[in-house]
């Protein structure tokens, strides 16, 4: 894990270095009041990051070997049994892909009742392998919760999807209103 940790630390150091560069060199109209605090933060942060990076790079080389056969400790807590680190990584990527997928769906087709339906049905059927009955009930409960509380009661201005905007579809097509 040392190598990954070192890469992450280097990334953090790069963020601080970029922030310092912007505050010190590329300071478009920044006066001392605006760039003092960023400089005060980034300079010690860069020093600390450098120390951590050296520590990590000097770390025990055996650590990575151990990681390959590591059993994820958190996993058995769910009752799913012990799994290897590579399997845990694969499942992590899949979950991140679902989160990203839902985000992209919201961005492209809007935060609407049918985006939510699509996501819930696809996840429950394809990923969780649940039956149609449970999928239907859970999706219905979530939709009622979403529409009643967030759309009708709180009137949150949910974003319209890019695709629907391009198609010029009216809002009423995809945002149900109370019938009264």
């Amino acid at each position: 894990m040392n190598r990954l940790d070192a890469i992450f630390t280097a990334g953090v150091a790069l963020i601080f270095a970029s922030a310092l560069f912007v505050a010190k060199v590329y300071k478009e109209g920044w006066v001392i009041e605006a760039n003092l605090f960023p400089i005060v933060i980034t300079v010690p942060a860069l020093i600390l990051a450098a120390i951590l990076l050296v520590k990590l790079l000097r770390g025990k080389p055996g650590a990575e070997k151990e990681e390959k056969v590591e059993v994820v400790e958190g996993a058995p807590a769910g009752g799913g049994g012990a799994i290897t680190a590579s399997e845990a990584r694969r499942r992590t990527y899949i979950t991140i892909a679902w989160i990203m997928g839902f985000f992209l769906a919201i961005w492209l087709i809007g935060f609407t009742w049918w985006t939510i339906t699509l996501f819930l049905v696809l996840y429950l059927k394809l990923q969780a392998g649940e039956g149609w009955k449970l999928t239907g009930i859970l999706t219905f409960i979530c939709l009622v919760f979403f529409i009643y509380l967030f759309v009708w009661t709180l009137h949150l201005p949910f974003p319209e999807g890019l695709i629907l905007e391009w198609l010029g579809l009216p809002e009423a097509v995809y945002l149900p209103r109370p019938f009264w």
Partner: protein
Amino acid sequence: MSDFLLFDAFIEGLIQVLSFPAFGFMLVGMLIGFVVGLLPGLGGATTLALMLPFIYTMEPITAFAFLLGMHAVVATTGDITSVLFGVPGEGTAAATILDGHPMAKKGEAGRALGAALFSSLAGAVIGAFFLAAAIPFVRPLVLSFGSPEMFMLIVLGVTFISALGGGSMLKAFLAGLLGLLIAMVGQDPQMGIYRYTFGWLYLFDGLPLIPAVIGLFAVPEIVDLAVSRGAISGDAPGKLGGVWQGVKDTVIHWGLTIRCSLLGTFIGFIPGLGGAVAQWVAYGHAVQSSKHPELFGTGMVEGVLAPGAANNSKEGGSLIPTVAFGVPGSAAMAILLGAFLILGLTPGPDMVGKHVVVTFSMVWTLVVANVITVALALLFLNQIARITQIRGGILVPVLILLIFLGGFAAKNNIGDLVSVVLFGFLGVAMMKLNWPRPPMVLGIVLGGLAENYLFISTQRYGATFLGRPIVIIIMVFIVGAILWPMWQERRKKAKRQLS
């Protein structure tokens, strides 16, 4: 006003709160607060603002029973989702996740919820009575805290980062500094210059806290749950109960509960520090004062008691400057100040004089609302805790929907969802690589305030602000907070070598 008259007013305040229609409106407010507290992203301040128009026709005591009844409960129930799912119901309930959620994973959800709610009740009662006791002589205390003292208090808060590190102090400090840097995004408070915004309108106002907290804490927990493919509570369903054990824990650790309640009251009492700070400072105190600081983050009940107590006691504390001077202690109190104006009341000497009954009714509302909520919640907590036995496959998509809804509710901008995703990835990476996440949140919370108070201090006093008596006292605490964990570590090493 004589002591006798004050006592009469104190009792009169209780009677008024328990009378109709104040009591009925308080129950309605509590119901709204209960739901809002459970929903991620919807804050107490937002709900107060939404409910403000309804008080126009109410009497002052009824109006405050309604508003404060709601606000008091939001802080209490926010802990429930933090413990069960690792999703903070409130920005101010994020610290409860650190040990509350690991307890739920160990099958001790009932115990964690019992501890969170009962410590919240203890905190609320202590905070409320501190408010009542402070009313007669609060003025000199508030006036003794200027910008230099506020700045040093924030530095003290940042210093607690070292305690929250959970192993690597170097990583903890770096995470804290990263949080401070993130807080720099947006318009700078002095000159109005846009920093690190990349010309993106969403960033002009800075990064909101809620999407950041949801991303850093909830997304990694969801990923963890999806990876395990089981239920949150895993193999230990037999221990799901234990609500009364949580209540007993509060009594067993009564010293910690009282200390954190007082800490929360004090932080709430300082205008501008806000509730999100109180719970982190209390958590840091619990870690530092524990004999086993290395076990925090793995499901220590003290890690639930401390933020729970501080979270609610700060409400009483933050009412003090609001009522006594019209200086709001938090965003929610600023909105409550609007209620004063709507009702034709002027915060200040009148509130501890001719309107003292109204002030005491606020104290009683905080106490009564929390007692009723906790008593009702304790009856159903074992049932609520059973949610942790539901299969992960069913919970994960619902939680993903909730984090996006909660994140979006913060600023109603698509940028909030981008923040949730980006902070989520960062949170997953930090969790996998053992980087502590709480210091980063603390940095985000305190960054803007620290810069502001430092600027005012240096402009007003120059470097001499460091010589002010209260500043020196706080500095001594800061040095102690840095050295204490180092000294403890050394002592442990020496012991290990000896054995």
